[in-house]
């Protein structure tokens, strides 16, 4: 049985969160946005991890189909769940920034709408995984969706340049380089992205471990002989000739 109880991933999560928070607080306010720019130091890393996590799900899905090894499926499933968490977080943080900036919590802008669709597609991926207990059937079905679903990443990212949207264009990942002039603001954003990626990696270590233990439990439950009737019903004692 897998019984690794290492604590280092929790230490990494706490340390990376503290570093990201500190830099976001000491960086200067923006000339236009004021202090609201500090929300970008968590919103952008969360959105980056949404892309990255679903890309890792693609890698895990292709890996499973190529090798039929459940190790790849565990990576794909774990990354999808973490990706759903960070996509949801990016959407909520965008809403918290949008209300004081745009005056609305939500608008049917191309970037926002496509991100919401991506969120629900990967929720569907997680739901699909619960339709069967057979690990290989589950892995095969999920891998197909994990490969198709990744098409959404470029759609979401380039939506702000392909369509006229309210959402501003990328400030970090763009052909002409980052568009942030202040070095401390750029540092807060870049370190935030790196710190959140470390948090993702630490969560993955534990989530993959959980996936393996859950598979062991399912296999153990299926191998146990279960009574046909409930525990309250006892078999007749045949040694007594069926008499009480």
């Amino acid at each position, binding site marked *: *049985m897998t019984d690794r109880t290492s604590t280092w991933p929790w230490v990494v*999560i706490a340390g990376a969160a503290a570093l990201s928070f500190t830099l976001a607080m000491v960086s200067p306010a923006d000339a236009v946005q004021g202090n609201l720019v500090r929300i970008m130091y968590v919103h952008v890393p969360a959105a980056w991890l949404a892309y990255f996590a679903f890309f890792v799900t693609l890698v895990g899905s292709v890996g499973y189909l190529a090798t039929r090894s459940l190790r790849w499926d565990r990576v794909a499933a774990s990354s999808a769940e973490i990706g759903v968490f960070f996509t949801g977080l990016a959407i909520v943080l965008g809403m918290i*920034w949008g209300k004081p900036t745009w005056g609305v919590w939500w608008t049917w802008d191309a970037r926002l709408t496509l991100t919401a669709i991506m969120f629900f597609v990967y929720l569907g991926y997680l739901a699909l995984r619960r339709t069967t207990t057979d690990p290989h059937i589950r892995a095969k079905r999920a891998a197909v969706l994990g490969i198709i679903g990744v098409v959404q990443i470029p759609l979401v990212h380039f939506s702000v340049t392909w369509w006229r949207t309210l959402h501003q264009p990328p400030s970090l990942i763009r052909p002409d380089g980052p568009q942030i002039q202040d070095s401390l603001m750029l540092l807060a954003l870049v370190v935030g992205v790196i710190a959140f990626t470390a948090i993702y990696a630490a969560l993955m270590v534990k989530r993959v471990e959980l996936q393996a233990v859950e598979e062991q439990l399912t296999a*153990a*439950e299926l191998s146990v002989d279960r009574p046909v009737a409930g525990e309250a019903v006892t078999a007749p004692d045949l040694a007594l000739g069926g008499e009480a």
Partner: protein
Amino acid sequence: MSQWGWVTLAYIVTFGSLGVYAWSIAYRLRTTRRRLRELE
């Protein structure tokens, strides 16, 4: 609400939800291991 109020809300949501999610993984890991031990 002031700008700092929105920033505070954003950081409570970020690190609060991250803490809850990390705790949920640890909790599921602990309870699944316990059930597995009970079966073995």
